[in-house]
């Protein structure tokens, strides 16, 4: 089963939060959405979750009881224990008794949260709280799992745990759509979507995104065009899109070209959009 938004546009007043966006999320794979503040990540996730109305376009999403959604805010109740949080959400989906006890034990074990089962959510570390949110989103075995920045700001060990949980869901057939600000996570997804100001800059597998990237990235101490350059450690990188007559499109002789990674590609495409689209 593949879930999707097609040609989706969402406006909030005069702001266009999503502008003609098409994203497909097939069962059994992880689709990662990257982009900054205001790029439209949360709006895209909420659109697929059926949480907001589109101004144009279509959504294909499972019925609510087959959907799991972890919002960017914690997603658990601080004054309830870990167990109470899980049981409360499970109750909404009609999960109870032995079936719930078994499912809860299994999920707590896989998330390494069993020792914290009796703890108040307020007393969990950030990483543990996100793992609890994940359990609550997946307790009813949804067909589509939507995770809004599940790993932002958490410690590296919890982050690896969460990736294992996300992978596990996908490996068992769930369609997973997650947003992240970490490009190493996006590289790991089967399909990545780079959003900028509500539009898709590029999408596909990491290999495909790399292969389709046009132009040259050079490494320099002093950029020729400051608004096409960005910081990488001690040096700067500069983007030469090529094939465009409006800017110097090719690097000067003697420049050092680098093999762009996803960080470079995302920045280069964002700059190209800012520098060529009249605002």
């Amino acid at each position, binding site marked *: 089963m593949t879930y999707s938004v097609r040609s989706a546009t969402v406006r909030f007043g005069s702001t266009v939060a999503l502008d003609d966006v098409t994203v497909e999320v097939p069962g*059994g794979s*992880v689709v990662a959405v*990257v*982009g*900054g*503040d*205001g*790029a439209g990540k949360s709006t895209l996730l909420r659109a697929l979750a059926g949480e907001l109305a589109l101004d144009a376009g279509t959504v294909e999403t499972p019925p609510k009881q087959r959907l799991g959604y972890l919002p960017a805010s914690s997603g658990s109740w601080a004054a309830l224990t870990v167990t109470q949080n899980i049981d409360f959400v499970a109750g909404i989906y009609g999960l109870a008794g032995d079936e719930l006890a078994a499912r809860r034990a299994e999920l707590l074990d896989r998330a390494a949260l069993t020792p914290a089962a009796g703890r108040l959510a307020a007393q969990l*570390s950030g*990483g543990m709280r996100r793992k609890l949110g994940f359990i609550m989103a997946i307790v009813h075995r949804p067909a589509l799992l939507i995770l809004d*920045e599940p790993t*932002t*700001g958490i*410690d*590296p*060990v*919890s*982050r*690896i745990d969460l*990736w*294992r949980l*996300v*992978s*596990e869901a*996908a*490996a*068992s*057939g769930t369609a997973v759509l997650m947003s992240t*600000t*970490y*490009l*190493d996570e996006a*590289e*790991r*997804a*089967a399909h990545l979507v780079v959003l900028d100001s509500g539009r898709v800059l590029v999408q596909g*597998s*990491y*290999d495909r995104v790399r292969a389709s990237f046009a132009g040259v990235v050079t490494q320099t101490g002093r950029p020729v065009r400051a608004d096409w350059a*960005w*910081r*990488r*450690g*001690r040096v700067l990188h500069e983007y030469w899109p090529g094939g465009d007559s409006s800017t110097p499109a090719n690097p000067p002789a003697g420049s050092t070209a680098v093999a762009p990674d996803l*960080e470079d590609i*995302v*920045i280069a495409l*964002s*700059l190209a959009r800012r520098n060529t689209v009249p605002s």
Partner: protein
Amino acid sequence: MTGVLLRAARVTRRFGAFTAVDDVSMQVQPGEVVGLLGANGAGKTTLIRMLLGLIAVTSGRVDLLGGPPDRERRRRLGYVPQGLGLYGDLTVRENLSFSAGAYGTAVPVLPPALAPHADVLVRALPLGAQRQVAFLAALAHSPQVLVLDEPTSGVDALARAALWDTIRAQAEQGAGVLVTTHYMQEAQQCDRLLLMSGGRLVARGSEADIIGSTTAVAVRTEDWARAFAALNAAGAPVMLEGRAIRVADADPAGLAEVLRAAGIEASLQPVPATIEERMLMLSRQARAS
């Protein structure tokens, strides 16, 4: 100026029977950006708090700008905590006036990107803009030492590059910068790295030095979903990477055995670990011992 800006010499800190920082020596010199890595509980925050003079050392010695980290020396220090240390209920301009007042400096001029937000409450700003405000507040008094706790967590690639440009400009003007992080993307921006685990400094140098000989295993197979389930059931720290499977802190022979037993054909290849995987390995070792 020359000399060491920030130094810990055989520093230990105990809380009761618990040793949070164990015999750590490190230093930060003018013009360099040093990354301090470690998982939660590795001792990074305790070390920073001693370097800043916020808590006392149990043994060893800390020097900030050539002497004990007292109030006078702390005036020449800039600190951006992970929580940013801004007042959400004050506007951008009010926050900057407050911190400028505390340091006795002029209120910094807002860069073009922030100028339209001068009278907006800080809590209403997106995270990337809040981080910029926190940087401005910490840099207004031209500190010689800058301590940053996960400076770019949660911001996008372009905003991250802009923040690093600011950090690098400080270093180029001679400041020494200490950055705590557990993310590869931040670590790669540093001149050199220190890795803490269980209160000790366990590795130092380049990214390659930090990762050392730690490897992960890449598992390639047509039957990835079943392979994933088998390895996961065997308790391996496993994750998907596209359609391949990646296992941290594992021995290829053991994984091959699990897959053989499940009747799955796969190719296994050791690949260099990431910094996160190195930290996972260290924390599993610490838990086991």
